[in-house]
Each structure stands twice: as structure tokens, then as C-alpha cells.
């Protein structure tokens, strides 16, 4: 199946800064793609290149197989939801939704029906006569969404749509957006700096930094097998330690832990130069007061800090070799509660440790 949007070797510079640096990317029909990165990584510029608000210095943008690199925004079968929502303040809610349809010369009963359908989809059908300044932040966000959906675009571009919402509303909106997409079968491209949002919603996540895509893949793949330390650091709060070759063949020496470790995967293990690191997910580490029967590997340490997060707690455990290990423990029962200064034993299975390239 041909991609609905194809980005071909696109670059966009602002003065000396490359906002988008030679990016190629295929967005598949009906997928939910998240562009994830810190502010200034080029994710919004990439989105604006798709919408047509920016023209690339080099490369092509194809939408539905058609070269639309230089097409104006109004000619593209995509719609964008702005971070500020960008509602028209001098029009009612219904007027806002109808605006895009009127541009397609839809009028009369058909217009009314389409507007109502879009407002119904976001449960705002009773507020059609209100003006944007009479709505709450969450309602405005829905109007912005309805305004895009009414156009029945092939691709919906979302620029940090949840940034202005509080946490509770954000979670609800995430679920609603996902349900809506399943029902309507529209391709979504989401720009966000929130890795939790990207992981929860997207089929694929592209992690961006300095105008480039570091890695793209399903959230679980990125989480389990980060291609580089930068991805690993960005995605989840991993423990990352530099490694050198161990004394025994097939093992790596982790100086921070004072430990010779066996590692499950990692391409540089196959004879390449050893300039890598190992990563360990904080939730894959078991913590206990006693040295239990060893199933994998482990170290002894002292709890240096405790951060209570409600459903879970994060422990920072200092090990004698000098390193600090981040451990996340579910607060499922009272026995797994430790205090600062407690002497603990950490253990993990050999498959939990992942070798990553720098």
C-alpha cells in the first residue's frame, strides 16, 4: 500500500539552523504516527511542511502519491489542529465548523448535517450557538477538532493538541481521540514532547533531535530496543552505564556497578569495537532486603533516595562501586516499602540488560 504522506529527503533551514535536516519518512494509510522530541527538535516544522505552511529548501512532500511540495495549504487534503486551537473568535462554534465546509461550496441542508455530525462526534452539538470565548479550554479543543473532522481529511495533523489541558482532561481526551480515529479511519500525525502521550496513543513513534529522526518504530520496540543512548535517555528513565570488555569472553564489565554482566542483545557484541553501554529498565529490577537465590545478576546497595509516586515508588540505590541504580517498584503491598539508608539487594534477569550503541 502506498504511503498517504511521503517525505523525501526534506531539509528546511532557518538561517544557520537546520530545523529539518534531510528527513525521509513514509506515513502509512490509517496509522497513528507521533513525532516526539524536545522543543526545537524540528517536529513542528516537519508538521508545517506537511500542512503547507512552510516550503522545504530541498526534497519533496508527496500526499496521496501526488507531489505537493509547493502546493498552498488550502489545496492539500490534510487538516491541522493548532496548539492554540486558532478558533475564529468572531464566529460561533457552528460557524467555526462550517467555515471549512463552505470553502468546498457545501451549503444548505448538507452543510447543516455535516456540521451537526462533526459537533456530535465531539459531543458539542448543544453548544453550536456559543462563541469561543464562552467555552472552557477543553470545549475549545473539541471545537478545533470538530472543525478539522468536518472536512473529512485524509490526514489529521495535531500540533501538541493536549498541551493546554490539565492531566485529567488530557487522559480522557487521549482515549477519545483514539476511539474517534478507529471509528473514522483517518491517518493521524501527532506532534508532542510528552513521551507518555506518544507511547499511549501512537502506532509508531519517530523520535526527533536536531532536525533528524533518531529512531522510528512501534512504542514497545523503542522502549525495549533503543538504537542509541540518546533514544534510551529520551524514552523512559533508563539506567545507562558505559561498559568495557569483560575478562570472560561474551561478558561486559560495568564499572559503575563493579559487575561483569552477560548481555542479551546488542549488535556491537559481535566483534565490533567496544564503545557501548548497557541499559536496564528501572521496572525490571527486583529489590529485596535479603540476598535471595540468584536467578540472574545482582548487586548490593543502599537506598539513597525515595520518590513516592502513588501507584509506584522510585528508589535511587547507591552501589559500593560508585554508581547509582534507579529502581521502580509498584506499591502493591507493604513488604516492598523501603526507607532511605536501608541496605537492599537488587537483582535482574540476564535478558533485562540491553547493550546499546553510543
Amino acid at each position: 500500500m502506498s504511503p498517504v504522506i511521503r517525505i523525501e529527503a526534506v531539509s528546511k533551514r532557518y538561517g544557520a539552523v537546520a530545523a529539518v535536516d534531510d528527513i525521509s519518512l513514509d506515513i502509512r494509510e490509517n496509522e497513528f504516527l507521533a513525532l516526539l522530541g524536545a522543543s526545537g527538535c524540528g517536529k513542528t516544522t516537519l508538521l508545517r511542511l506537511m500542512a503547507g505552511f512552510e516550503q522545504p529548501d530541498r526534497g519533496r512532500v508527496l500526499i496521496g502519491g501526488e507531489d505537493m511540495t509547493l502546493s498552498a495549504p488550502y489545496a492539500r487534503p490534510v487538516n491541522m489542529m493548532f496548539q492554540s486551537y486558532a478558533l475564529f473568535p468572531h464566529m460561533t462554534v457552528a460557524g467555526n465548523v462550517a467555515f471549512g465546509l463552505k470553502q468546498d461550496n457545501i451549503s444548505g441542508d448538507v452543510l447543516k448535517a455535516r456540521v451537526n455530525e462533526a459537533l456530535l462526534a465531539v459531543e458539542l452539538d448543544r453548544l453550536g450557538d456559543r462563541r469561543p470565548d464562552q467555552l472552557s479550554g477543553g470545549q475549545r479543543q473539541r471545537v478545533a477538532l470538530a472543525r478539522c473532522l468536518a472536512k473529512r481529511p485524509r490526514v489529521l495533523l495535531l500540533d501538541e493538541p493536549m498541551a493546554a489541558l490539565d492531566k485529567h482532561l488530557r487522559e480522557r481526551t487521549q482515549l477519545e481521540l483514539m476511539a474517534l480515529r478507529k471509528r473514522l479511519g483517518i491517518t493521524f500525525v501527532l506532534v508532542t514532547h510528552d513521551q507518555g502521550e506518544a507511547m499511549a496513543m501512537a502506532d509508531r513513534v519517530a523520535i526527533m533531535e536536531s532536525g533528524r529522526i533518531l529512531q522510528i518504530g512501534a512504542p514497545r520496540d523503542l522502549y525495549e530496543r533503543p538504537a542509541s543512548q540518546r533514544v534510551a535517555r529520551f524514552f523512559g528513565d533508563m539506567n545507562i552505564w558505559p561498559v568495557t570488555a569483560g575478562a570472560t569472553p561474551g561478558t561486559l564489565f560495568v564499572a559503575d556497578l563493579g559487575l561483569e554482566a552477560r548481555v542479551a542483545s546488542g549488535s556491537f557484541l559481535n566483534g565490533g569495537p567496544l564503545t557501548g553501554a548497557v541499559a536496564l529498565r528501572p521496572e525490571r529490577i527486583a529489590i529485596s532486603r535479603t540476598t535471595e537465590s540468584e536467578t540472574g545478576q545482582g548487586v548490593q546497595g543502599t537506598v539513597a533516595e525515595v520518590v513516592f509516586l502513588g501507584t509506584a515508588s522510585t528508589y535511587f540505590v547507591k552501589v559500593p562501586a560508585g554508581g547509582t541504580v534507579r529502581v521502580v517498584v509498584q506499591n502493591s503491598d507493604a513488604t516492598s516499602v523501603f526507607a532511605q539508608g536501608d541496605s537492599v539487594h537488587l537483582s535482574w534477569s540476564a535478558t533485562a540488560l540491553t547493550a546499546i550503541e553510543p
Partner: protein
Amino acid sequence: MKPSRRLSVTAIFLGFGLAFLYLPLAVVIVYSFNASKLVTVWAGFSGRWYAELLADRQILDAAANSLIVAVVSASLAAILGTAAGYAFARFGQFPGRATLAGAVAAPLVLPDVIAGLSLLLLFVALGQAFSWMPERGLFTVIIAHAGLTTAYVAVIVQARLAGMARDIEEAAADLGAKPFTVFRTITLPMIRPAVAAGWLMAFVLSLDDLVIASFVSGPQATTLPMVVFSSIRLGVSPKINALAALLILLSLVLLATSAWIGRGALKRASLRP
């Protein structure tokens, strides 16, 4: 005790300031109801000067001329100034931008005498070159005033657009509206208060202008300030006080309108997340 004493000093300064600004106006209004024929001697309350004013054909004709000139030139200035302000705020670094910006802003700093004289020379030259050019009169005053006041509208509109995020216009384009539709249905309604404020400013400036109008006007097109100025040279009639009082009233109404429009714009602007 201290704060209240400081407050009273402030109040005194404020009082002086306000008196400096508005006492002359108050005097004019009070004396417009003076029964005496002498402008400076109070001789009881009377409305006779208003009655005489309304019977004076010369003044009424001049007032009509001034209103026509002010309305038409302010409308022209509103159109041209909006176009210029939009270009400066939205078209980026287009070629010739600096030249155009200088040309539009020049009347803001050009002395009226110079502007009036150069326009007079231009109109005379044009009249000699093209036989179809109309005689100097209301038409030339309108052109001159529109050229002068376009700068004010452009500045106001540009400031409003600069403070207005582009994403609303981008959203309209994204929803399928072509550039002119975006301007007509989105940009224009949102900058309407600025255009209205610019129009009012142009209107007042035109109504007020004596120098340029004196240069470019013709024999049949005397404006109100010209009548007032010439009548003062012949000795001030209390009728002029009455006229001044009416003009102050008109200005107040226009100012109040402008403030009212501005308030609505402020309320709308504050809804942006």
C-alpha cells in the same frame, strides 16, 4: 497620614494637568452661551449664538464641505492604510518594502506647509498636463487628506496585525480558504476595530486641517477651519464659540465611539488561550 498627603499632592498635580488641557475648552463652551456680543465680557446666559450659527449659510456650507471631505478622505485612507498595514505585517521582506514604508510614513513627519505647497504644485502641474483633471476644490482636498491620513491608518492596522497571532489565518487557509477569502472572512473582521479607529483618526485629522486645505482647495470649496480662521482675522464673533462647542461635542462622541469599539476588541482578544 503619609499616603493621604502624597495622594493629595498627586491630586493637585493631576488637577493642574487637567485644567491646563481642558480649561480653554470649558471657557469656550461657557462663553458660547454668553449673551454679550463681546467675546470676553459675560452678560448672562443665552442661546442666541447657536441660533445665529444655524442661520449662517457660509458656515453651514463650510461645515458640509468639511464633513464630505472628512468622510470620503477617511474612507479612502482606511482602504489604502489597511492595505499598506497588511502588507507590512504579513508579506515579510518583499522587494521595495523599505521604500514603501518610508513613502507611507513620510506625511507623519512632513510639515503641513511643505505637504500643502508640494501638493498644490502637483495639482497645478497635473491640471496643465491633463485637460480632464477637475478644478481644484473638494476633490483635491480629499486626495490631499487621504494621502496624509493613510499613514495613521497603516500604523494602527499594522500594530494590530503584529499583535495578532498568524495561526488563526493559517487555520483558515488550512481549512481550504484561498488568500483573499482568508482576508475577507477572517483577517478583516478581526482587525475591524483597528480600521475603525484609524478611520476615526483620519476623520478628525481631516476635519481639523487648515494648512493643507488652504493650499489645495479651490474657490468653491471652503472648509470649516478656513472659515473659522478667516473670521477670527476679521474679529471674533461669539458664533465661533458656539461652533467650537459643537465641534467639541462631536469629538467627544467620536472618542467615546472609538473607546467603545476598542473595548469590544479587547474583550475578544482576551479569549485566546
